[in-house]
């Protein structure tokens, strides 16, 4: 294929991990701010409904909202563990009913890339 000047270019990001954290409604903010302190750039939050193992808590299960917030954050794989742990601790996920967090490999991602960042990368190489 001929490299045409008119052709649009797309920068594909590799080494990306997706961290998904499901918490009770109202708890997403603290999870996101912990992730951002640990270096995450952005976050997507959406609302959902869901339950975990109800019998585990007995009557205490009324204290757990079935309304959930789902936090999704794309992170560089080198920092993924660090951010993942920060979110785990901020969300107090070692308490039953608080939620769940998981991380998946992303094959590739693409978004706006600042031109000066691309320049700097080219110089490094």
């Amino acid at each position, binding site marked *: 294929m001929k490299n045409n000047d008119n052709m649009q270019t797309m920068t594909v990001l590799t080494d990306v991990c997706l961290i998904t954290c499901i918490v009770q409604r*109202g708890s997403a903010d603290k999870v996101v701010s912990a992730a951002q302190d640990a270096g995450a750039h952005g976050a997507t939050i959406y609302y959902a409904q869901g339950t975990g193992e*109800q*019998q*585990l*808590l*007995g*009557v*205490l*299960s*009324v*204290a*757990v909202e079935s309304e959930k917030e789902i936090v999704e954050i794309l992170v560089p794989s*080198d920092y993924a*563990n*660090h951010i993942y*742990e920060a979110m*785990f*601790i901020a969300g*107090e996920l070692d*308490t*039953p*009913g*608080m939620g769940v967090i998981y991380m998946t490999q992303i094959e590739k991602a693409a978004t706006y890339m600042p031109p000066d960042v691309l320049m700097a990368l080219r110089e490094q190489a």
Partner: protein
Amino acid sequence: MMAYQKIRFATFVQNAWIRHRSISYNDVFKIKQADQTIGLSLRKIDIYRLVQPYLQTRLLEQCRAVVPLVLYLALFQILVMHHQIDQIWLVLSGVLAVILGLMLFMEGLKHGLMPLGEGIGHSLPRKLPLPMVLLIAFLLGIGVTFAEPAIGALKTAGSIVDVTQAPYLYAMLNDWAGVLVMSVGAGVGLAVVTGTLRLLNGWSLKPFIYAALAPALLLTVYFMMDAELSKVIGLAWDCGAVTTGPVTVPLVLALGIGVAAASGKADSPLSGFGVVTLASIFPIVAVMLLALYVTSTTSAEAIIAIASQPTIAAAVNLPWYETSPGQEVISGVRAIVPLIVFLMIVLKLFLRERVHHVAITVYGITLCVLGMIIFNLGLTFGLVQIGDMVGALLPAAFTGLDSVANSPLYGFALGVVVVVAFAWLLGFGATLAEPALNALGQTVETLTQGSFKKQTLIVAVSIGVGFGIAIGVLKITFDIPLAYLLIPAYAAALLLTYFSSEEFVNIAWDSAGVTTGPITVPLVLAMGLGLGSAVNAVEGFGILSMASIGPIVAVLGTGLWVQWQANKRQHLLDDELTLQENGT
């Protein structure tokens, strides 16, 4: 010499930060399958972590609703009226009881009553024929009215009314109190039935508003002619505002939506609207009909005679259930238990369905009853006290009162301005903070595709309530007959309704019901009664009814304006397009 060991800083951080342990989910699953009871113990810290935010958010939610209002009233009394709060500790604990009671009640509603109501709403229309569904809907309307927390305020208000000045009003609030709530409930029940039918057939709301308001206004005119009956008008119109609270609205909506879903009508965004409107108009007619019945069966003299007679004898030793804490306990139980029993009967006998999560349902019902009792106590000692106190002080701003030193405090003209400004701000502020209004605003913004902004609706409703309460206070202060205010206001609302589109009609008439919650109603009711007795008015009702019609007119007006703006923009756009077409 020293030996160097190289560690990557990132590796160090990762290891120092948190210890990792990997387990296969397969193994966990196998262990759980083998032993169902495993893993049921909780650490203390877990319980704390679970319970602390649970209590905190719910407590703060109620604090946000109650504290600013109470603080506003208290500061007004101390700073503007220069008067100390009597029995401050009693009032303070009453306010705390209101917060606590409302918190428990709302939580109980969520776990106890709502799942039952939703279950019935969901499966009732599938299993029973329509007439049966409508009958149950009607009975449910009565049940929810009794369970409405603000209804208790009506009964408390009854004890302030002077029997010799307004005997029929006194009789309806005391001897006939149960029947009064029953007829309000019947009005709500009828509204649920008509609302459900409307939903099923997709009828427009407008004719219903005309048809429901016509008898209400005609009866008002008739009552106005009669010296005794005219004192009941305020109560009747206020009852409409009392009914649409935190129990009625969600339960009735759940039923309505269930019926609509079962009939295959995809629930349109408007499907929930309208029932609230009818539920605030029908009770007005019901209460006026009851007043007619009371006047036809008993004479004013008989009521006065009965009321003045037993007070001496009864004051000596009242049974425990008629003195303060006992009475609230009884009324709390009486408000909730019949509704629960009714819901249970419907669920078990007619639907033959099991209650899921029995423990949690029981927990919810217990909280409901407990919350209602504590709320009722708080109502008697906190909200009604404060409202009554402020209301009784208000006239001191512009006239001389025996109870207040150096009154009038501000001279006549300035004093009246102070009172009106106070009332306006009270209505405006209380409505602005209403969480239900925020939710309605959101619905409206989506419904109108953003042309009617959420903030516009909230401000319009708040301004409407502000003027409503201000006018209501003026009504009591200068003893203006309520009918003179209601008839023109509703005539204006009807006129605006005629010109508005169906959506705005639904939104506007429902917004009135949203504004009168369990905190505003007792406060405003008590304030009106206190004010009324301070200026020697016959009765202090009517503020709530003005606070209901205010937002209706305000929202309808704003709606027409928004529409007009949108049309104008569309015309401009069209003109530009034609110009462009001509140009090219």
